[in-house]
């Protein structure tokens, strides 16, 4: 806990501007050795936390992207079948006329094992950051399997036996809330809800990532994005969209939003990602919002 501010600083050095609560969450992850479940709307920077965490721990980031139908073999391990086939054939040539006994043990050995993210994460010497992204997209069965892995940190491979973790990874799970997660998984984790940043934090994020903007423009962009988020939109722009927009404005030589309302309006496509949202934003709407940003 002593290092909460230090963590916030170190995250900032990587370009991730965290609020103090997220810094607390990261320090708790270390103190209690628990996974951290991050929830929040798409585009608030959940995945970025994992990237920043990997940088501050100076370790590898291993990412498992979840999807419906994700099974253990895609997440945990698979055998290298091509090499196994070659090995079988090589064995046959070398030992023509002898029996095939023994080859089975040999081809189902560590040498032919392909690590997938979860196995990789528990077999590293230095604890990596394991990002289990969008866990709400995976099926219930996978969630249950994950629960077992995250509490025991060991896996069983029928041909090899049990593999225990050499190091316990820093585990981050993200969810957009498309499906309700089980209570068991939630209770296993620390919980943090990431909201859209406030103007001050978003301006600091813009400055950290697109430093060419300068403070004035960064604050203007952050204010403009905040008022756009308050409009009735189908897809609310996330932080990534804000950064795209800031980069676009800088690229087009805009130094102040009020100087060039036309460019501002034309570049709004960086923020608005559906046809209806774009149709709603007539030049008058943009001008009105720009007026408020002053």
């Amino acid at each position, binding site marked *: 806990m002593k290092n909460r501010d230090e963590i916030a600083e170190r995250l900032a050095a990587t370009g991730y501007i965290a609020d103090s609560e997220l810094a607390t969450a990261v320090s708790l992850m270390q103190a*209690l050795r628990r996974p951290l479940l991050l*929830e929040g709307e798409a585009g608030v920077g959940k995945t970025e936390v994992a990237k920043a965490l990997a940088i501050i721990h100076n370790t590898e980031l291993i990412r498992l992207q979840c999807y419906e139908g994700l099974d253990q073999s895609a997440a945990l391990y698979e055998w290298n079948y091509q090499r196994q086939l070659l090995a079988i054939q090589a064995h046959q040539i070398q030992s023509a006329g002898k029996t095939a006994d023994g080859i089975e043990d040999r081809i189902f050995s560590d040498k032919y094992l392909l690590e997938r993210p979860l196995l990789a994460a528990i077999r590293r010497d230095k604890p990596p950051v394991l990002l289990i992204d969008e866990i709400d997209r995976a099926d219930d069965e996978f969630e249950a399997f994950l629960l077992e892995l995250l509490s025991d940190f060991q896996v069983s491979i029928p041909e090899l036996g049990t593999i225990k973790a050499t190091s316990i990874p820093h585990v981050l799970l993200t969810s957009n809330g498309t499906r309700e997660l089980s209570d068991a998984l939630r209770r296993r984790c620390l919980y943090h*809800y990431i909201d859209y940043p406030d103007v001050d934090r978003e301006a600091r994020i813009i400055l950290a990532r697109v430093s060419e903007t300068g403070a004035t423009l960064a604050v203007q962009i952050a204010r403009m994005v905040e008022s756009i988020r308050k409009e009735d939109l189908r897809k609310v722009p996330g932080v990534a969209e804000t950064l795209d927009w800031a980069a676009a404005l800088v690229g087009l030589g805009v130094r102040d939003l009020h100087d060039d309302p036309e460019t501002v309006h034309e570049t709004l496509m960086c923020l608005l990602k559906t046809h209806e949202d774009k149709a709603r934003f007539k030049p008058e709407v943009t001008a009105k919002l720009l007026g408020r940003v002053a």
Partner: protein
Amino acid sequence: MTHSAKEFGAPELRLSVDGRVAMRLAGFLATLRENAFAIGPREGEDAMMLMASGYAEKPTLLRSAFKHLFSARRSDWEKFDGIFDAFWLGKRVKSRSKLMGSSSKSADTPSLKSIQDHNDRRADGAQATDQVPSPDEAGDERSGEGRMEGASRAENIADVDFRKLSDPAQIAEAHAAAARLAKAMRTRLTRRDIVRRRGERLDMRRTIHANIHHGGVPIDLAMRRRKEKPLRLVVLLDASGSMSMYTSVFIRFIHGVLDEFREAEAFLFHTQLAHVSDAMKERDPARALDRLSMMAQGAGGGTRIGLCLQTFNRWHAQRVIHSRTCVMIVSDGYETGDAQLLGREMAALARRCRRIVWLNPMMGWQGYEPVAAGIQAALPHVDLYAPANTLNSLLALEPYLAKL
């Protein structure tokens, strides 16, 4: 087996929290549990560890740490600060941190007495309260299994005579229509699964095992079977007074559906929610109807759809809903409780299941507009909103249900 933090070299923190602080912490955990936080013994241990390691001296830091440790979902996250401030700093809790429901009476100002009571209760062996319903809700659960001792008598009993409403020809017709509908759904879904099975994948691991003796030439192919997860139907039927003219037909319909569909669950609600799948599975439709008419006798006391959905989401949803579940709500949407609560619970339900179908018998009436606050709050989360006041309108649903 669960690894503790210590095993993996987490900094060992010595527990030096005195008894008073421990009592206070226990009281806080009890208050959180009253507010529907799911907290197990491990969270308590971790909280003690944090308090002992210096967090206790800085309230804002402690609040932030506890917030991460004890919250499990957004609703917890949002009400946590208020509860913390009320308990530890003696501030008045903001209204948003109050839980809607039966057990929130002491959430406002957690007095020493309520803490004491809780400690007593814990001492009585009620420690695992995080998963166990409170006495009121346990009553709901019991009624959910079809035993309604006294529960319906306490309600405003209306003279709902199901036998009068169901003349034999109508019953037979409704039942036949329901059976046809259920059968059609079943046939189509089976056909879909057969088509899906054509996309079988090779199981390389088993194929290699099987062909070592052929020198690795894949002669015997092993295929990976797809896990089958049949579609499940969960029916929530409004049995309140305003629906009484339709309830019997719908009960017949649900009986038909449950007859044909292995994966189906049924609930009745009015002012309470009752799990009626078992009663519905009664082979003899007349006896099923009898058992159900008993359960439907709470009718007349208004409809608390939001509250019933809350009970459903909290105590049943985890078990009866999986990713291929269609929830069918049969109701006129006349909410006598809190329409906002209904909206929130519908949103939570929509996140869990694949589809929500809302059948409203009133929709078939000429000039009907969904203006009731309840239906207004629910509609944004509904995938299909359809009339269901005649056998024909029931049959018209079939193509939609078969597409699920």
